[in-house]
C-alpha cells in the first residue's frame, strides 16, 4: 500500500516536472476578433480578394515563409494602403503591418514569420476606399516557435 502511494505521488511529481516552463506557457488560440475590429476601425471586412501563399505544413514555426498578394489595380484612386498580419496563437498576435501606396505598383509582400503552433493566420487589407478585406489560411506547424528554450 505504501509502495503504491509512493508510486502515485512520484508519478505526479515527475509529470509536473517533465513539463517544461515553455509548455505551460503554450497558448490556446485567442479571440483575435477585437484586434481585427480595432484594425478595421469597426468596419466589417469582406472575405477574400487576396491570395495567401504559406506552406500547408510548416516544419519550423520559427521561420514560415508567407506571401500575400492582394488583388488591386494599385492606381492613384484605388490601392491597398495597409496589410496587417494576425496570428491567433502567437503570444503577441499582431505580427506585422505593411504600409503601401499607389506607387507600390503591386500589392504584394513576401516575408518570414514566426508561428507558435498550428493555427489560422489572418490577413487584413485596408483599401484606399475605406473598405477592408480579410483573408484566412490554416497552417499546420510541426515544431512551434517560442517553445524552444535552448540557445
Amino acid at each position, binding site marked *: 500500500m505504501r509502495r503504491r502511494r509512493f508510486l502515485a505521488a512520484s508519478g505526479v511529481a515527475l509529470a509536473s516536472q517533465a513539463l517544461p516552463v515553455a509548455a505551460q506557457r503554450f497558448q490556446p488560440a485567442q479571440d483575435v476578433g477585437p484586434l481585427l475590429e480595432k484594425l478595421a476601425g469597426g468596419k466589417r471586412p469582406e472575405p477574400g480578394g487576396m491570395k495567401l501563399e504559406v506552406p500547408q505544413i510548416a516544419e519550423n514555426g520559427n521561420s514560415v515563409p508567407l506571401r500575400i498578394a492582394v488583388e488591386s489595380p494599385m492606381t492613384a484612386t484605388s490601392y491597398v494602403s495597409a496589410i496587417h498580419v494576425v496570428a491567433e496563437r502567437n503570444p503577441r498576435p499582431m505580427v506585422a503591418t505593411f504600409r503601401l501606396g499607389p506607387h507600390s505598383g503591386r500589392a504584394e509582400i513576401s516575408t*518570414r514569420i514566426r508561428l507558435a503552433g498550428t493555427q489560422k493566420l489572418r490577413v487584413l487589407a485596408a483599401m484606399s476606399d475605406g473598405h477592408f478585406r480579410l483573408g484566412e489560411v490554416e497552417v499546420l506547424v510541426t515544431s512551434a516557435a517560442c517553445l524552444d528554450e535552448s540557445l
Partner: protein
Amino acid sequence: MLGRVQVPPKVKRGETFEVRVLIQHPMETGFRRDINGAVIPAHVVDRLVCRIAGREVFSAELGTGVAANPYIAFFARAEQGGPVEVEWSDDRGQKGRAVTTLDVG
C-alpha cells in the same frame, strides 16, 4: 546593424519591380530563457521605411512575430532612378540603413 537591399539591375520607366530587404537582427521575442533560466530581453526591429529617390514608397511595423533576420520583399513602380534607401530601427533605438541605386532606363 547590418542589412542589405536589392533591386533588379535595370528597370524600365513605369515598370513594377521587386525590392528585397534582408536585415541581420536576432528579433529576440522576450519569451526565451537562457541557460541559467534568466529571461532573454526582447529585442526586435519594429520600424522600417523605404524611400526611392527621396519619396517614401513602403513602410512596415514589425513585432516579435517576424522571424529572426527579417526578410521583407515588396514592389515599387519605377518613376525615376536614384537611391533606394531602407532605414530601420529597433526597440532599443538602434538604427540601421542600407542603400542601393535604382537604374531606370
